[in-house]
């Protein structure tokens, strides 16, 4: 093809086009239709515009856009427990994820090292990992609430437990898969076990470990929304549930959008870190 424009430009134009078609279809589908049958004005007042003017309960793209701009103008206001800025809610969620995920890193990487280095530990711990790994992290919630007796800490625990497995499994896999010739280099150079762990095994396994960390952050961000819907109080998950109770579909859509954006940023952050420790061979 003799197309002059580079691929990324063409793809960008196409993306905009797809978005425009989607927004237009959305707008057409949600704009007010012909008025319904005449009814008693008192009754009509109770029913609201949805019933009387044929307007859809689903907000259109313009309403959502206007509301989004309003939110972005004041992201950090705090008007009491049920009315906080989206920035505040996202910050609560990210703090919980950071705490649970950070704890998981501290446990999973050393434990993964142990499992990866010792075939005995690998075999001994394998049944536990295999059984615990597929459990939905939310299934832990009642147990956490009962034992920890604090909803905020329980949410952090749920994030911890869901971030743990991918990191643990990947660290163990990366450590046990370090090329034998690199270990032999360390052996012929009489490198001690600690120095070998930090100068040979860790750099060799780092790309695999970071892949696990990237999977974990994705899962943690998925789970935090559900966990906060359960425990309530603060956070973007609570915000979504609260706005559903308020029947503000506009705010729910905005929250979905922002959850996606933050998730993408977290993923990109870990992808960048993974690239930094990946070595070409």
């Amino acid at each position, binding site marked *: 093809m003799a197309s002059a424009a580079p691929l990324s430009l063409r793809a960008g134009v196409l993306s905009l086009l797809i978005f425009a078609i989607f927004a237009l279809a959305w707008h057409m589908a949600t704009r007010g239709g012909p008025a319904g049958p005449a009814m008693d004005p008192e009754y009509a007042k109770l029913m609201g515009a949805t019933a009387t003017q044929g307007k859809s309960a689903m907000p259109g793209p313009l309403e959502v856009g206007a509301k989004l701009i309003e939110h972005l103008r004041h992201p950090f206001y705090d008007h009491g427990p049920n009315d906080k800025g989206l920035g505040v809610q996202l910050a609560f969620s990210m703090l919980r994820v950071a705490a649970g995920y950070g704890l998981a890193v501290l446990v999973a990487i050393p434990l993964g090292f142990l499992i990866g280095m010792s075939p005995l530990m690998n075999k001994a711990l394998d049944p536990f990992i295999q059984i615990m790994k597929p459990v939905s992290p939310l299934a832990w919630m009642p147990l956490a609430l009962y034992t920890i007796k604090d909803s905020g800490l329980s949410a952090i625990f749920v994030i911890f437990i869901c971030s743990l497995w991918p990191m643990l499994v990947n660290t163990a896999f990366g450590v046990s898969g370090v090329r034998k*010739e*690199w270990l*032999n*280099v360390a*052996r*012929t*150079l*009489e*490198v001690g076990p600690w120095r070998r762990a930090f*100068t*040979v095994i860790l*750099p*060799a396994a780092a790309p695999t470990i970071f892949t696990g960390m990237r999977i974990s952050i994705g899962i943690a961000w998925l789970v935090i929304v559900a966990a906060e819907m359960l425990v309530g109080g603060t956070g973007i998950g609570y915000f979504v549930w609260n706005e559903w109770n308020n029947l503000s579909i506009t705010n729910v859509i905005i929250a979905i959008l922002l959850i996606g954006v933050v998730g993408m940023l977290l993923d990109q952050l870990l992808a960048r870190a993974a690239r930094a*420790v990946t*070595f*070409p*061979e």
Partner: protein
Amino acid sequence: MSDRFISIEGIARRFPTRSGEPVTIFEDLSLSIARGDFVCIIGHSGCGKSTVLNVLAGLDQPDAGFVFIDGKQITAPGLDRAVIFQSHALLPWKTALGNVAYAVASRWPSLKKAEINARAQRAIDLVGLHGAEMKRPAELSGGMRQRVGIARALSIEPKILLMDEPFSALDALTRGALQDEVRRICRDTGQTLFMITHDVDEAMYLADKIVLMTNGPGAMIAEIVENPLPQERKRDEIHRHPDYYPLRNHLIDFLVTRSVTFRNDMPAGYDRKKPPVVKPRAQTPTMA
């Protein structure tokens, strides 16, 4: 041989098989190597020559027998022996200099960083890689990577260099250049060197002694061939030396036929503990 700098005494190595009956790669294998010797070991794939090298390196343990180096028994890998691996085995996240410096820092842990880097740089310069020291292995050609491997091995000033088919993955031109380099360095430093190869010309050009191993399993050292070619060898001249073809024919005869038939056709008085030493030469009256 009177000088038993390296002494392999009756080693055996067996590997378990699926049928349960372990297969004996070799047994009762003995060999001694003098200080400063350049020894090549030649044999077909599977004869266990790599296993012998791994035992010398301490990376593999014999099922029987002992290995002594400079009077000390070998049971584990150590810094007195440097291994140059067939696949270069450089750490890909370190630069060329970093790879060599890692070895230097392992050999002399108390050295300061500047001194470590200076020694590493000297080793890099010695193998002709000046200017490429900050490159990572992925940015280097196959020959340059193997040079870094050689620099890493030399940098720790080992008693013995162990090389496992170090040039087999390289193209002919690069291989020739590196052979010249290794020969020069060994002659300059008096380095003892034990090298595995399956390349007859490489063995003839480099070695003082060529150890011939029969096919495995149950491989034996058939004989030790003393290289009759003069110490001053020029790649473009040695093939005109009168002893060149007698030596080459002897080696090729061994690889083609005797490596298989030796077991059933042992020369009279063959002793595993003291394989015969031969020196193939042109048939001249001066031969005693």
